[in-house]
């Protein structure tokens, strides 16, 4: 009765390697920014404003990716910007996930009035325009790292709640849930030990997606100058700054933009890749 079905192992896909690799690189860069960054990210040198990256004519040695209009090193600012981006991604992403997934799981599994209350709340919540809502929140809370994280959590928990609710509902209709009841497992125990493991791949995929979104939201907020202080290096702040001088110094805009793009793409691809990988069920 032995067959090969148990031996199927899929190789780690290219997208998992690439996205994971980029994020690992970024994490190292963020952690080691003080040692890796060639210059102080805040140091201005008005004589060295708008220096091009190293391969172009007129580049200043030591400034690999050029300088912005105030003479600050673009590479160093990107490296330090990675710190803020990753902190926001991790903390805001995780908090959003825990709150949203918990509410979604309860709504989808308990149904009844629990579901009605949570779902109506989600519906109302989703009627607010998100970016405007974020700007309003920051205006009330005052700019700062904590405010950004709170704003992201408050706005985005509905994403998790909705998806996880639907998933928990479809899992709750499965016979293995009825079987757990026949075995005498409590409702709460069934939710944790039977349903949760089955929605976990979806939660993980959403979590990484949410981390990407958190990075974008942080960039949007710093683009409109509502993130942490204007002086600190943030990718969004750099993009905003680069936009004004794109005709004279495109590198100030393009490098943080590429970094941001690759980071968000890597987060979403990592989620997809992980979901494929850790799903023991061949769907």
């Amino acid at each position, binding site marked *: *009765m*032995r*067959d090969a*079905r*148990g031996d199927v192992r899929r190789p780690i896909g290219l997208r998992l390697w690439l996205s994971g690799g980029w994020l690992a690189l970024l994490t190292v860069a963020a952690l080691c920014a003080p040692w890796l960054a060639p210059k102080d990210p805040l140091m201005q040198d008005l004589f060295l404003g708008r220096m091009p990256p190293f391969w172009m004519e007129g580049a200043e040695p030591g400034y690999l990716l050029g300088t912005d209009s105030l003479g600050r090193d673009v590479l160093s600012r990107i490296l330090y910007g990675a710190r803020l981006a990753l902190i926001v991604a991790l903390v805001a992403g995780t908090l959003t996930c825990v709150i949203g997934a918990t509410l979604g799981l309860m709504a989808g599994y308990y149904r009844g009035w629990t579901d009605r209350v949570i779902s109506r709340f989600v519906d109302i919540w989703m009627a607010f325009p998100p970016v405007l809502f974020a700007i309003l929140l920051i205006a009330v809370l005052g700019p700062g790292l904590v405010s950004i994280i709170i704003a992201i959590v408050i706005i985005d928990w509905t994403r998790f709640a909705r998806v996880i609710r639907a998933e928990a509902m479809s899992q709750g209709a*499965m*016979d*293995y849930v*009825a*079987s*757990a*009841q*026949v*075995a*005498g*497992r*409590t*409702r709460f125990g069934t939710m944790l*030990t*039977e349903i949760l*493991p*089955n929605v*976990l791949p979806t939660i993980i995929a959403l979590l990484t997606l949410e981390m990407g979104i958190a990075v974008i939201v942080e960039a949007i907020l710093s683009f409109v100058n509502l993130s942490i202080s204007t002086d600190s290096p943030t990718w969004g702040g750099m993009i905003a700054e680069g936009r004004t001088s794109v005709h004279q110094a495109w590198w100030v805009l393009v490098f943080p933009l590429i970094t941001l793009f690759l980071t968000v793409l890597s987060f979403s691809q990592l989620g997809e890749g992980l979901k494929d990988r850790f799903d*023991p*069920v*061949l769907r």
Partner: protein
Amino acid sequence: MIYELRDLHLSLPDMSRKPLLGAAPRIEILKGVSFDIPKGAVLGIVGGSGSGKSTLGRAMVRLLEPTSGHILFDGTDITHLSEDALRGMRRRFQMIFQDPMSSLNPRRRVGGIIAGPMRLHGMDGLRARVDEALDMVGLPRSFAKRYPHELSGGQRQRIGIARAIALRPDFILADEIVSGLDVSSQAQVLNLLQDLVADLGLTLAFISHDLSVIRRLCDRVLVLHHGQVVEQGPTADLFAAPQAAYTRELLDAIPLPDPDQVWR
């Protein structure tokens, strides 16, 4: 008596016809069902689709709460017992489900699936008990480390049986357990069940729409039609001299290898 059912009624709300305000109209699924299951009996519950046989089964193991009437399990009235009050007795009546894919948690290994209910009821020596249960259903012990999707339909259904018998219940409800299987796995699972009934002295209720399966396994049959019992009696009598018109209809629906031959 393991089970005594008296005038059991069960209705469920019809959400598709629920008005905007107010309660949904209720559909009556069981309309006064009464029967007994003596200890050691193998009762077949047969009926067409929509006859209420699965609902009846789910009420018996209290996955559903009846609207009125009584279900006595080994003398205890479990009709309206709360889930908390039932929990202690749950070990004693078990169920095997129709769809062996959805009734096994896809994220658990077979060993965990079989051991889970035993752990809940505080049984010890789980590893040995899992091995024993796998032996009883004729699967190799190495299967404990496999996931359900790595098994065939017949093998999965054996896991469902192993999970139920591992708890040493007094009663097992088998709800259409062979209807999803191909004919040769059907035969194997039925043989297995027959052996287990003989070896463990199980009391079994076997729900099916297929009279030829019932005839092979059960010593008593109950025919359900539109939520009512239309006929019940010993299997041999029922096949020899069906009383109700509906029973004759069901008997006529059995495909015979030789069309000119009649049952008997």
